[in-house]
């Protein structure tokens, strides 16, 4: 006797699925989603960050039944959403400095504790510049004190708002305004940068996770899980930037998907410093497929290209696959 086959056409790959039971459906497929980041914002066409922010905050809004306050670091997300006197945010939202969103989040959480409002939850959010560089001290402090804040980093791998300068999240070989595609080692150098999800794990905080805008259901599940936990939590979301990456606006989700399928961006969850789940690669592809559509890597290819750079990036992906066990056992 075999078990009945469960098969739902697109399963959870698509945003919605009429064949699933209502309780199995995503926040984003719902007519009642909060649209925390409303229309009319001034993000570029195909902005991954605008998309990632709505995905994450809407999921947090559902998990907290709308009792949510956000602190927001300076950066693209803040600039495009709140040009005076307009705002796109449909929740209590505080603009912090570039570097202190984590500390402001800590403060709000402390205030809620004093007021006895344990029902109101706090998120702090920013881009990779405000998180991995400028706000890193405050973030580390929030982690080590285990403050009751979910910090969300929208990682588009450079300072896009100010004109695409390198951050410590910029990948090797990527061209930015400060890592020009010139000389013997064009683009960002190999061997530089930092991996903040792993650093967050080193603080042994209750929950650390990575996600991309290409896998909505995974992202929503991680936000939901994070909101069931008290203490410091960190969610790192890869959000492609058509402008800074030199990519077509319609390719935002495709690139995020390829980042995961190549192994360059491992998607996982960790609790108290230990990896608990890993999202396996479904259709493995060489890194070239991910790099080619992005002008920031165009100097790698062509007649005067740098094939050794391609090899090094592929080696990086292969290492991630080994290190995090990104392949199914059968593969």
């Amino acid at each position, binding site marked *: 006797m075999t078990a009945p086959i469960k098969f739902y056409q697109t399963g959870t*790959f*698509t*945003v*919605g699925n009429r064949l699933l039971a209502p309780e199995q459906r995503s926040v984003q497929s719902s007519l009642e989603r909060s649209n925390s980041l409303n229309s009319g*914002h001034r993000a570029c066409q195909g902005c991954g960050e605008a998309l990632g922010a709505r995905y994450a905050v809407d999921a947090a809004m559902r998990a907290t039944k709308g009792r949510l306050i956000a602190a927001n670091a300076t950066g693209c997300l803040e600039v495009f959403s709140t040009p005076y006197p307009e705002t796109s945010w449909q929740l209590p939202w505080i603009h912090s400095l570039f570097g202190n969103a984590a500390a402001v989040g800590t403060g709000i959480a402390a205030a809620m504790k004093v007021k006895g409002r344990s029902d109101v939850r706090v998120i702090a959010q920013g881009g990779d510049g405000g998180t991995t560089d400028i706000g890193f001290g405050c973030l580390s402090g929030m982690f080590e004190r285990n403050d009751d804040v979910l910090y969300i980093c929208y990682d588009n791998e450079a300072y896009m708002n100010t004109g695409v300068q390198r951050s410590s999240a910029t990948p090797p070989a990527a061209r930015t305004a400060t890592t020009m595609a010139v000389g013997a080692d064009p683009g960002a150098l190999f061997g530089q940068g930092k991996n903040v999800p792993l650093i967050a794990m080193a603080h042994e905080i209750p929950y650390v996770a990575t996600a991309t805008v290409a896998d909505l259901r995974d992202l929503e599940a991680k936000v939901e899980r994070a909101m069931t936990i008290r203490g410091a939590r960190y969610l790192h979301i890869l959000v492609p930037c058509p402008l800074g990456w030199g990519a077509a606006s319609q390719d935002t989700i495709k690139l995020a998907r390829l980042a995961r399928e190549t192994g360059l961006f491992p998607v996982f969850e960790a609790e108290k410093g230990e990896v608990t789940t890993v999202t396996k690669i479904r259709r493995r592809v060489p890194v070239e497929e991910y790099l080619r559509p992005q002008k920031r890597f165009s100097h790698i290819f062509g007649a005067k290209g740098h094939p050794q750079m391609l090899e090094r990036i592929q080696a990086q992906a292969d290492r991630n696959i080994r290190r995090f066990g990104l392949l199914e056992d059968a593969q």
Partner: protein
Amino acid sequence: MTMQKPFAITLDPGSSLANKTGTWRTERPVYVDRLPPCNAQCPAGEDIQGWLFHAESGDYESAWRHLTRDNPFPAIMGRVCYHSCEGACNRGKIDAAVGINSVERFLGDEALKRGWQFKVPEKESGKHVLVVGAGPSGMSAAYHLRRMGHRVTVKEAGPLLGGMMRFGIPKYRLPRDVLEAEMQRVIAMGVKVELNARVANIVDSMHEGAFDAAFLAVGAHIAKRAFIPAKDSSRILDAVAVLRSMEGEEKPMLGRRVVVYGGGNTAIDVARTAKRLGATEAIIVYRRTRERMPAHDFEVEEALEEGVMVKWLSTIRQADEGALTIEKMVLDEKGNPQPTGELETLAADSLVLALGQDVDLSLLEGVPGLEIKDGVVQVDPATLMTGHPGLFAGGDMVPAERNVTVAVGHGKKAARNIDAWLRGVAPAISAKHALATFERINSWYYSDAPKTVRPQLEIARRTSSFDEVQGGLTEDNALFEARRCLSCGNCFECDNCYGVCPDNAVIKLGAGNRFQFNYDYCKGCGVCAAECPCGAIEMVPETV
């Protein structure tokens, strides 16, 4: 009235909704419906993607009703249709084509099991149409004409309903209770059928019955002969007669060693029938090679599995008592068989000729305006009307591929055109959507799943009986199979566009109502079009 504002603040807080970012757009997304390749391929004009959509949610009655808008015989189709739709299916390029035919059969069987009936027309048109022939084409036309409110009388020369479906297709492919039930369901709509009612002359019959129009679908029942020098004692039969006599009390006497001459599906049917009647050897003699055989490959395969043998590149030179003289052939550069002079003897108790069929056109003698060419009636391919006004024809008696599905499609097409002709209006020609090609599918979004294989009766069992060879799907499997459909080119409400828009510029209209773009805010990034699984969104340049 101004509110007290903090220092350096001069404006009230506002919403970004005031900022109509739609003005940035250079391209706009639009929802489109494209023609799925299965639908484009279907000779009966079924909206396959459309009925699978209902089946996917387990709403089998809606699926069946949607299907039968175009084809009233899903249980028959699910057994005898050669399902060229599956050959065109885009899913075939991912893993394996959707088992459309098996889901169709499931729906057809479900309808028979649950007793679903067709709706009787609400209004009568007052027109009376004569249909000649109760085969697939005639009964399909009768169904569609009745749905349109016309009075329909079917005159059938034979003693039973179904035409070639009964007298040409063996029981092991189409059980007679299924055939009868789907025919009776059409009659239950108020279609009158007269059996054993041969029409001798169509003009006289129309005049006698005061019919307003007629559809002819008499089929092709006359076996073609080939000249083979034969001794009187040799036993030579034709395939049509053999298959027809299978319906009667007296089964044909074929003997233990049966040779079938021909390479079409009928030759295969006869050989498989001979096996079931107890022949120890059933040998098909065919002049060309397997690649060039007109019979469908899966039927050849099934026949070979059952022990039917084939002598390729062979022709029959002479028939004697108990033996045939066979000549080996070779293919020339053009692929035509040429004799080699090399002869051999093949033991045979009987020889069955399966060399094609001709149409009995005697009922058309003296009808003005008709054109007959190559033994078939010429019709306007767009309307199926013959050169005689009000007289339409379809099925095997007009120039077309000869199979049940084509015939059923003719019935529908003729009915629409007869209806238009009766009302004195031009037939409505609906513009076809552009094809939903595989390149437009974003295959990432579909779960991986192989095609469910219909259980086949064990070979041993099927050669000794006339039980149905192909089994049906269980409900679980049918649902699984339906859900493998990619819904090519037609929105299936997966909410992807609604979710992936960075600007919330997609309005969800609720179940069954699809979506709308909010062009006030859509910046035209194209993410929705790129991430639409089925290719139902197109980017169109804005006019300046």
